């Protein structure tokens, strides 16, 4: 039908979702969409993203402190470090958007308060998931799930936003999440092979 409507390049995924063996997100299309209005500026969007990255780093840090198994504790430390690297890239990006702006760390975002990547509430998510984080494999699985939901959320934000420059920021954030997922996929493969 799309070809008939003027779409130049259309591909049908053979076997549909049943045959898809790549990353999967879940939840309704509206999930956590209340975090954005749709008219955010690029700077506002980076601030929100920074706040969500901060939240995830806090989540990893909090659990790491309570972990009694060294291998898992180290894994959480590495995951928190990745978020720190991600935050640095956001600070650099913010500097290009708002060259004379305030430090991103001190600005925060009201919408992202108490939330982490994927738009989840940090406290509720910790309560629901911490009891299951007892093997490195499960920890990486959880991290991949969170990054996949974050990727999906940024791309759903991009569908809601009208501002071309904000869309470009969201696509950049989504590409970052994809790179992060590729790294976690490598870790998981190594753990599975070990």
């Amino acid at each position, binding site marked *: 039908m*799309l070809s*008939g409507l003027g*779409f130049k390049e259309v591909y049908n995924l053979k076997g549909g979702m049943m045959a898809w063996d790549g990353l999967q997100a879940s939840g309704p299309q509206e999930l956590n969409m209340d975090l954005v209005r749709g008219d955010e500026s690029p700077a506002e969007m980076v601030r929100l993203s920074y706040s969500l990255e901060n939240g995830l780093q806090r989540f990893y840090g909090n659990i790491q402190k309570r972990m009694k198994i060294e291998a898992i504790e180290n894994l959480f430390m590495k995951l928190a470090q990745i978020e720190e690297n991600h935050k640095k890239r956001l600070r650099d990006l913010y500097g290009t958007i708002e060259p004379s702006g305030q430090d991103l760390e001190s600005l925060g975002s009201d919408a992202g308060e108490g939330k982490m990547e994927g738009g989840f509430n940090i406290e509720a998510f910790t309560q629901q998931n911490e009891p299951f984080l007892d093997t490195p494999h499960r920890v990486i699985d959880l991290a991949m799930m969170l990054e996949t939901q974050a*990727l999906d959320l940024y791309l759903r934000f991009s569908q809601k936003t009208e501002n071309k420059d904000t869309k470009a920021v969201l696509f950049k954030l989504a590409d970052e999440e994809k790179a992060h997922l590729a790294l976690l996929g490598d870790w998981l493969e190594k753990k599975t092979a070990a």
Partner: protein
Amino acid sequence: MIQLKRLFKPVKNMDSQEAKAFIEKHKEGTFAILDVRQPGEYEKAHIPGSKLLPLPQLRDAADELDPEHPTVVY
């Protein structure tokens, strides 16, 4: 009659591996993934970043997509 023929023009197939390679190769914002199933199916599992446009609404809502962008449909 010509319109009807155009509507059912055959499209290329991609298997899961090819679709993953396609998504990996392309930068976000340069292509679209379109989910034409029902909202309940989307909710259970979908490819991250998919645009949900159930088949019955597709014709009326297709202008939400860019016809210039390569589009993977499932």
